[in-house]
C-alpha cells in the first residue's frame, strides 16, 4: 500500500514534465512562432540582435538562437524552478501574477464543488427515499432540466436579475476596491458577497446530475439484501439511511468527483471572465486577448498543476474512505 502512495506521488512530476513539454511544443506552434513579431519589431527599431535575444529569453525563458534541445532543457529547468517568464502586457513575472490569482480560483472551485456535492446528495437521497412521490417526480424533472442549462447561463441570468436588476450583489471583482486586503471581518464579508454569484451559478449547474446520480445509486442499494437484513435486525432508520445506504451510494460518486474537479477547474475560465474575477482562468484569457504568450502558457501550466495536485489529494483520501480500493494489476490475456 505504501508502495502505491509512492508510485502515485512519483507520477506528479512526470505528469508536470509531460504537460510542460506540451506547452513548449505549443509555444512553437503558435501563430507567428515564438515571438517572431516582437523580434522583428525590436530589430527594426535598431536594437542589436544580442539584446533582442536576451529580452526574449527573459520573457519566455527560451533562448531563440540555441538548438531546439537546449531550448527545451532550459525551458523545463526554468519551469521546475518556478520561472514562467515575464508577462508582456503586465510587466510582472508570470509566476507572481499567478500566485496571486490561484487562491481565488481554488476558493471558487472548492466552495462550489463542496456545496454542489452536499446539496445534490441530500436532494438525491430524499428523492430515492420518497421514490415515486410528487416530490420525486418534480425534482427529478427539475434535475433533468438543470442538467441541460450550462453554468454560465445561470451566471448571466443571476447577473441580470440580482446584480443589475436588484443591485443586491456586486457584478465583478473578488472584493470591494476600497477595503484593505487583510483578515478583517469587513474584508471577509466583501469577499463572500463578491463570490456569491459565481459560486451560486457554479453550484446550481452541477446539482442536477449529482442528485440524479445519488437517486439512482440509493434506489439500487435500498433493494439490496443487507439493507433488508439491517431492517430486520431492528436498526434505527437513521442508522440505516446514513451507515448502510448513504455511505455505499456516495462511494461510486466519489470516483466521479476526481473527474469533476478537472471539468470544474477548466470551467472557471468562462466563469471568471463573466464576473471579471481575477483567478487563473481570467489571466489565461487576458493573456490571449493581449497576445501575451508567456502569461497564457504560464496560466495553462499552473491550472494543470493545480488539477494534478487536486486529483492526487482526492485520490489519497479515496483510499482512506473506501478500504476496498484495489491497487493491483490485472493479468494479461
Amino acid at each position: 500500500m505504501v508502495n502505491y502512495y509512492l508510485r502515485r506521488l512519483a507520477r506528479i512530476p512526470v505528469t508536470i514534465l509531460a504537460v510542460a513539454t506540451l506547452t513548449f511544443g505549443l509555444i512553437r506552434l503558435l501563430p507567428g512562432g515564438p515571438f517572431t513579431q516582437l523580434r522583428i519589431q525590436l530589430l527594426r527599431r535598431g536594437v542589436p540582435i544580442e539584446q533582442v535575444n536576451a529580452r526574449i529569453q527573459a520573457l519566455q525563458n527560451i533562448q531563440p538562437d540555441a538548438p531546439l534541445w537546449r531550448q527545451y532543457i532550459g525551458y523545463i529547468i526554468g519551469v521546475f524552478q518556478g520561472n514562467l517568464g515575464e508577462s508582456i502586457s503586465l510587466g510582472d513575472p508570470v509566476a507572481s501574477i499567478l500566485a496571486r490569482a490561484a487562491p481565488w480560483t481554488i476558493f471558487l472551485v472548492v466552495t462550489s464543488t463542496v456545496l454542489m456535492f452536499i446539496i445534490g446528495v441530500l436532494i438525491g437521497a430524499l428523492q430515492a427515499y420518497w421514490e415515486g412521490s410528487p416530490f420525486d417526480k418534480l425534482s427529478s424533472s427539475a434535475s433533468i432540466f438543470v442538467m441541460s442549462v450550462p453554468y454560465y447561463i445561470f451566471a448571466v441570468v443571476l447577473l441580470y436579475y440580482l446584480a443589475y436588476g436588484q443591485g443586491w450583489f456586486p457584478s465583478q471583482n473578488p472584493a470591494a476596491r476600497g477595503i484593505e486586503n487583510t483578515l478583517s471581518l469587513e474584508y471577509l464579508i466583501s469577499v463572500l458577497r463578491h463570490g456569491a454569484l459565481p459560486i451560486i451559478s457554479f453550484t446550481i449547474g452541477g446539482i442536477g446530475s449529482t442528485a440524479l446520480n445519488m437517486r439512482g445509486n440509493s434506489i439500487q442499494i435500498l433493494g439490496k439484501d443487507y439493507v433488508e437484513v439491517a431492517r430486520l435486525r431492528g436498526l434505527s432508520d437513521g442508522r440505516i439511511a446514513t451507515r448502510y445506504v448513504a455511505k455505499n451510494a456516495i462511494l461510486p460518486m466519489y470516483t466521479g468527483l476526481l473527474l469533476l474537479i478537472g471539468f470544474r477547474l477548466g470551467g472557471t475560465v468562462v466563469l471568471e471572465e463573466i464576473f471579471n474575477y481575477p483567478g487563473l482562468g481570467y489571466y489565461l484569457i487576458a493573456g490571449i486577448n493581449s497576445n501575451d504568450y508567456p502569461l497564457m502558457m504560464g496560466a495553462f501550466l499552473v491550472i494543470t498543476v493545480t488539477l494534478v495536485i487536486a486529483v492526487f489529494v482526492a485520490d489519497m483520501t479515496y483510499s482512506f474512505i473506501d478500504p476496498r480500493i484495489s491497487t493491483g494489476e490485472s493479468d494479461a490475456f
Partner: protein
Amino acid sequence: MPSETDSQIDWQSETSEVEMTRRDRLEELYRRWIYEPVAIAWSDVRTRLGIVILTIYLLIAGVAVAGLYRTPQTNQAGRFVKMFQDWSVPLGSTNSGTDLAALIIHSTPFVLLMVLSGGVWATTVAVAVGTVSGYKGGSIDNAIMTVSDFFMAIPGLPLVIVLAMTFQDAASNPIYLGVILTINYWAGLARSIRSQVLAIREESYVEASRTMGTSTPRIIFKDVLPNIMPYVMVNFVLAARYTIFASVGLYFIGVLPYSVKNWGVVLNNAYYQGALYTPGTGHWLFVPMVAIVGLTFGLILLSQGMDRIFNPRVRTRLAGESESTEEVSETVTGGMP
C-alpha cells in the same frame, strides 16, 4: 404467448434457418434494429419528447441548408425589436437590426455538425481505448492507462482554448472543432468503460470464447461491446452535451475563432454590448439561451429514456406481447414524466 407459436410455425415451415430468404433476413433486421428500438423509445414519455425536440432542431437545420429563411444581415429590421411584436422579425432583432431568428436558424447546421462530431469522436476513442485496455490487461493496459491519465490531468477548457489559438483554421470548421473540444474528454470515459470491461472479462461466456481460440477483436465486438452499449449511448449524449456547453461557453467569452455567427457569438455580442443593463434588450440574451438549453434538454431526455432500448428485459417484454405499439406503451410507460 402468440409470438412463441408464431416462431414455431415459422420454424416448421422452413426446412432450416440457412434457407432464410434475403427478404426474411431484411425483415428480421428491420424488426430488430429499427422497428423495435423505435417502438420502445416512443413508448417512454421522456424519449418521445426528446425525439420531438431533436427533430425540430433537424428541421431548423434543414430550413437553413435549403435556404428557406433569409440570411442574417444588419439593418434588415428596426433596432431592438422585441420578441413576438413584429411578425416579420418573430424573435426580435439586435442592436444592429439583425433578425435574431435568422441568426439562430443559420447557425443550427454548424452547431449540430459540431455536436455530432464531438460526440462521435469522444465515444469512439473512449470505447476503443477502454475495451482494449480493460480486456487485454497486463502491460498493454498499463501503457494505455498511463497515456489516458496524462490526458485526464489536463483541464479541458484551457487546453481547448490554447489549441484553438494554435490551430485557428481548423477551429472554424465544425467537424474539427468538435474534435478539438473533446480532445481529452475521452480519457475519463475510457477509464470508466475499462472498469466495466474488467468485470465482463471474468464472465464465463468470455472465458469460453477465449478457450475456443476466438480472436480478440471478435470477443470485444461480440461479447464485450453489447454489454456496455447502453452505457456508451448515454455517454455519447453526455459528450454531446459537453461539446455544446464548451463551445458556446468559449464563443461567449470570445476565444474561439468563427467565420459565421452562432449562438455563442450572439450571446457574446449581447453580453458585451450592454444587453445586461440596457432595458428592453433582454430578448437578445434570452433567444440564444433558449436555443442552447432546448437542444441540450432534448439530448438529455433522449439519454434518460435510452437505456430502455438496450435493456434486454424491456425488449423481451415487447416481443412477448402483441405487435401493436399502443399496448406496449401501456405496459412499458412509467418512471419519470
